[in-house]
């Protein structure tokens, strides 16, 4: 079936099987490899994308269902070639990644959190990422990255809507 997906601000017309998940569609048909398959049953969160700005598991949605809603992937929050967003840079500053597999998902969750709550407490950050499993970092440096990003973004006088 033909569907139209709005991904990172671009409309794509693609041919999918009904059973093609949004995750597989992004990776295989739109060549957006940043969302990762970790479990394919909605527990690990490595497949997270933003669905109208809200973090969801793309492995639990069939692509056909996603038509008509703006989807944001890690590629969509990267400012430009060779550039890093404040959140991405904060992850580099605190070393909030090791193998990188859960990282795009964590960063998108951070984006959604900080768009909604620019001054999260440590506990709110922990809660926000509690649906994303990391096996490398033990989470500490991820939490620190998000806190650092929040601090930097608050200091930057950026309008909140631009961080979506």
């Amino acid at each position, binding site marked *: 079936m033909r569907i139209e997906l709005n991904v990172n601000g671009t409309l794509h017309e693609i041919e999918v*099987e009904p*059973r093609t998940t949004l995750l597989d569609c992004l*990776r295989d048909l739109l060549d*957006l*490899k*940043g*969302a*990762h*398959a*970790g*479990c*394919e*049953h909605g*527990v*690990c969160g*490595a497949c997270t994308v933003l669905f109208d700005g809200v973090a969801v598991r793309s492995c639990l949605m069939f692509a056909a269902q996603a038509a008509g809603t703006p989807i944001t*992937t*890690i*590629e969509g929050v*990267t400012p430009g070639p060779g550039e*890093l967003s404040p959140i*991405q*840079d904060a*992850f*580099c*500053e*605190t*070393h*909030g*990644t*090791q*193998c*990188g*597999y*859960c*990282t*795009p998902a964590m*960063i998108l969750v951070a984006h959604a959190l900080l768009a909604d709550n620019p001054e999260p407490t440590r506990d709110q950050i*922990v*809660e926000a*990422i*509690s*649906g*994303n*499993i*990391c*096996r*490398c*970092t*033990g*989470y*500490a*440096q*991820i*939490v620190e990255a998000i806190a650092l990003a929040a601090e930097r973004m608050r200091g930057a006088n950026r309008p909140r809507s631009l961080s979506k």
Partner: protein
Amino acid sequence: MSADRHRYVSTDRRVREDRRFVVGKGQFVADIDLPHMRHVALVTCPYPAARIKTIDKSAALAMPGVHYVLDGHELAEATLPLMTGLDTPNVPRRPLATDVARYAGEWVAAVVADTRALAEDAAEKVRITYEKLPFVLDAEQAIQAGAVLVHQAHGSNVLLDKTFVWGEVEQDFKDSPRHLSLRVKWGRSATVPIETFGVAASWDPWREMLDVYASIQMPRYADQISIALKIPVTSVRVHHDVDVGGSYGVKRGIKHTVLCGYLTRRLGFPVRLIEDRLENMRGGDAHGPERLFDVDVAFDDNGIVRSMKMRALENVGAYAGRSPFQLGKPIGAIVGPYKIKSVQYRAVAVVTNKTTQEAVRGFGQGPTNLALERTMDEVANALGLDRLEIRRRNMIRHEEFPYTIPSGTTYDSGDYHTVIDKVLANTNYEDLKKERDRLRADGKLAGIGIAACLEPSGGNATFEALLNPAITTSTFMDSCRISVDGMGTITASMHTTSSGQGHETLLGTVIGEVLQVDPDSIRVTRPDSLNSLPSGTPVGSRMAIMLGGAAFHAAHKLKAKLTTIGAHDLGIPLERAVYKDGIVSDRDAPQNKRSWGDLVQIAFRNYHRMPDGLEPGLAVSHVMQVPTGGTLPTPDGRVQMYPCFSFEFHLILLAIDPDLGTPEILRYRVGHDCGTVINPKIVRGMTMGGIAHGIGAALYEEFAYDGEGQLMAQSFMDYLLPSSREVPAVEIIQHVTPSPNTVLGQKGAGESGYLGAPAAVANAVNDALKPLGVSINTLPLKLSKLGDLIAEARAKKGN
């Protein structure tokens, strides 16, 4: 080299690899699309043991997009069995079962189709008839005479039963006034990366080249592919620049790779297998140690442990590759940080009808540390002595290093007492006890957990020769190549894959330190296996030592060459030439110098200015043997194992809800000493991640089986991985006791945290249960088990 004098080493530098990961531009195996690539799905055996009677492929082959259905017999005819570590020819291991399947989830057939979805559709249509066979799941049952045999031809279920006696064990037991026996079980768990194993293989018959892209962490990977597929190793090109999404030991991938290697050669197009999570959990590279310890110790009234007997019984699963060696590696630190004088160690590996176990972070040291630390706690309890004090009394003292333990390994350095003191300076032990007592007064069960554990590092895997005398390997190498190009920029290469350890940053930092140039100006590459020098791969917490060491030596070679060229061109004797920041000058007349650009010019374009006999260009390499390595075991089973020993001291406060059994870690402090820290961010990350793994193994994770041989934890819904909510805030107190055996004093940190956290949590739980008079020595300490234990104890007490 003290930390103060380092320009780059030990400074808080960013990890360069992070850049590609935060934008989602890592190159994982599933990101690689080879033209005309097809996909594999597996058909697995539903029974724990069964004879395979018939395989009907017709319905599957008739389905759309299906190219092939491979069975075990065809594969066995064309390939050799996979390499094993022990001498067990009657326990062969193959990617696909041939006549008999020996665990629920074992791969029986492989379907190749245009897409993974189509391959799965067809896999469902492969009709296999089985004759169910008797099975055995429990290791203690498997070793009994008359037990169901997993491999008939082997004659028993025992792959290994070896006893070592180091020192006068019986005499020491006789001479000691006190004895204690303890049974400790490490439940079947592993480090379970979020990315499963995957491989894409492509055979080019014109070049006779098998290109392999894999999420791999496996020594001798290309060798094993070559042997199994019966092609020269020079026909195997493993691409090391694939990013591995976590491995922590498990991604051995050899059955997947031989399978795909065969299929691509047979079918003429690239073939890819990415384990889905079910394939991974049931039959892929997922399971880890399941070990039962029986420990006896002999000690005196002061709590000095003189001698120890330990039997370690490992439930290896239905087949064995390297995994039984996980019983051998802990021999190199069998007494932990303690001065136990004599040891008897019996290592027993048995097969059962469970999934085959792979290597896991620490290679058996974590379980062994658990047994040691539970024992030390119980010794203290038996004497009514403080558990911290007992450890202090038994620990090797700083001035006693290098210290040789009964099994023949010499520990390089350590200052355990100082590390402990530093942790206690941060968190007062008496205050912690008061906090525990307050919690107890509030009706909670509360306990303090202590664990003092070693992380052997360096990867001198002489346990192979110890457990299998037919193995005479004493070489464990790594390497680095550095070349400066004609424009003066530097490229360094490493010769293996990485899974998040920051090896590129490590290389840049070490080379930058030696050459006194900005580490970030150094390009790091990962040539494929045909263009690589030898590497032992990131196992055994070895890369800081080995890759760091090789890089250090290579950089010094380069520095020496540059100095020689500069001295010659300046017309001065070599002793007067000073190298600083890439410039060579005359010690006696510093205004006379040759810049980096001058030196490059000479080396590349002005042969007439080169010293005699020196090769043009600026290319160097170094292949390094593991420090302290090169010996084989003595007849009485003593050998030097790993060269360096990092130390960690965990201090935990834990509370348990007495009605629900729910454990909660309230405070977590860890003192960590891995010698010189090359990159603090990386080391901290390793420790934190290891602790999270350890908390998982201690409290949540288990590959549990039911009585019918079925894995109950087949997905992440039942195999419970700690989230950010389950890992408490941890404060790490770092100490540096350099190693005398390494170039910068660095030790390994790749297994940090994981090797001590389960012991600390287990000790905390037991301390919490102590007022009830019960203990629990089986991991994982699931809350329902705790709940049941507490309820039973209270009922007995008339509560």
